[in-house]
């Protein structure tokens, strides 16, 4: 698979939003390859540390030549410092665009993809910045229902240490779990859920995991597990936004019906109708779309 990221020699000056305002054709990112990601990370590391080694080596040479008090040595030291700052500024500039990229993906996916394409072409990037960019790409692909690619991206990204972006790991695993469930790939969903259970989660992440786990249990036919601690699950569901609360009630109602607990099922279904519109209920229930 060709590395389209290095084939495109676009103008590096100006940020991505200026490129878009100039009316440039929106760029699509080619399909994901873990090999390309690994190569990009390796190239970033080589550029960053290689530059540092070269500059430090030059300074070491000057020291060895007993030039430590000379102007050349001083300028070399300053150059090393400024060079290291310049390398970091590239990552800082991209990191500043991350919220804008995330918002664009939600509102205008094509624009979001173009911004991502711009960001991914920058070099060298810090490892965590590039991995977060791929996280955003996974979200974009999920919106585009390219689930195979989402799985590839998430599995690849979580295999690396995320450094300062370690807090993103639960979000990646939640996305991975949901994608496996959309694909009806239950073993993958199970593995991803196991990994989630090993991580400390925030309240909102815990609620999302609960929803995905309930969905998995129903798809896998584990109705008893879905019904375990149902009162507590209902209380947790009440903390979710209305639509998700309703979806959770629909799933629990289905599990209750399949567990021959019709009274509970009716009660949960009546509650679900108070949280969801008819259309939302049909989306969750009528198609068996758990």
């Amino acid at each position: 698979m060709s590395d389209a990221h290095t084939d495109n020699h676009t103008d590096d000056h100006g940020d991505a939003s200026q490129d878009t305002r100039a009316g440039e054709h929106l760029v699509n990112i080619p399909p994901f390859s873990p090999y390309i990601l690994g190569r990009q990370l390796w190239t970033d590391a080589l550029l960053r540390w290689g530059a540092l080694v070269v500059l430090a080596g030059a300074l070491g040479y000057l020291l060895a030549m007993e030039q430590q008090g000379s102007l050349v040595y001083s300028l070399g030291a300053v150059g090393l410092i400024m060079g290291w700052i310049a390398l970091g500024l590239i990552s800082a500039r991209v990191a500043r665009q991350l919220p804008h990229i995330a918002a664009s993906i939600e509102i205008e996916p094509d624009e979001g993809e173009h911004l991502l394409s711009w960001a991914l072409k920058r070099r060298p990037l810090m490892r965590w910045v590039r991995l977060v960019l791929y996280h955003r790409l996974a979200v974009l692909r999920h919106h585009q229902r390219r689930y195979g690619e989402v799985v590839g991206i998430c599995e690849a990204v979580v295999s690396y240490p995320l450094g300062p972006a370690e807090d993103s790991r639960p979000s990646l695993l939640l996305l991975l779990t949901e994608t496996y469930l959309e694909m009806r790939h239950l073993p993958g969903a199970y593995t991803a859920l196991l990994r989630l259970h090993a991580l400390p989660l925030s309240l909102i992440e815990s609620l999302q995991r609960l929803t995905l786990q309930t969905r998995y249990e129903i798809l896998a036919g584990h109705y008893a597990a879905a019904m375990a601690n149902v009162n507590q699950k209902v209380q947790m569901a009440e903390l979710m936004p209305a639509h998700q609360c309703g979806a959770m009630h629909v799933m629990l109602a289905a599990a209750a019906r399949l567990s021959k607990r019709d009274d509970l099922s009716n009660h949960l279904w009546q509650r679900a109708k108070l949280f969801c519109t008819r259309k939302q209920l049909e989306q969750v229930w009528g198609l068996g779309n758990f």
Partner: protein
Amino acid sequence: MNQANKPSWSGPTAGQLAEHIQRHAPRGLPWWSTWLPLLLLVLAGVLAMVVAGPWGAALPWLLMGGVFILLLQRGQLARRLERNTISLQELAMLRNFAQALRKSWLLLPRLVVNPMLHLRAVTVIAHCLDQLKAFDAAIVGYDYLVEHLPPEHPTALQAKAQRAIASLCADHLVDGDDTLRQLRQPMAQLADTPVAATYRLGQLVQNVRTGHYTDAIADSEQLCAQLRPLGVDAGYGHALMALCYYHGRLDDQNAARASASRWWQTARMLLPGSVMVDRFPELAVLGEIS
């Protein structure tokens, strides 16, 4: 601890909250703190040029090391403050309002360096005060949010809608009416959102507090759908509509009582009766019809 020994809760007054927010107003990082890393690096460069001997070689590197440690600590502090703010929001979500209020009160002085986190903490404070029925102090918090957010921002509109409800609950009927009037136009664009649902609840509270029961009944057809985005909190709206049918002077009192009973039963599917009566004491009369 029995009821006799339980200390009575005395939250902050409106004046105390105003003073606390003013004393700990957000100011971001001081200018010298923002420029400190760059200044130290420039100093390192200058030292490399002017200081001779082994100190001239070593000092710049020590300074660079110091800058890296400073940036690392600053990043860790920012992440710690973010985590602490998230934990406040989680406590409020779990309805531990007193604890969330206390922690956010204590955390606010440390959040002056981050205006966004500061706003989130004030949001938690205002919400908790509202739920703990310290309405005058809650209004101070909501006013702060409205002043410091863009006028059309969803959080600002939500704060305004909740401010209206708090004003009505505190018997500031004119104030509440004014706030609801200001929200009429923006709400037209926000149908089916939690903000619009909060506004609708505010209108219902206004109808009840001003005794306009028949007006509320006349608008009741879409109420269920309008309150749906509130999730379980829609129960308050259903209960207030039950109260309107209970008190409303309608031609067919038997049908009115039946409607009141239906709305009250729906409300109790969402929230316990005691919780709703605690929030709106006038609902206590509905205990007769259940």
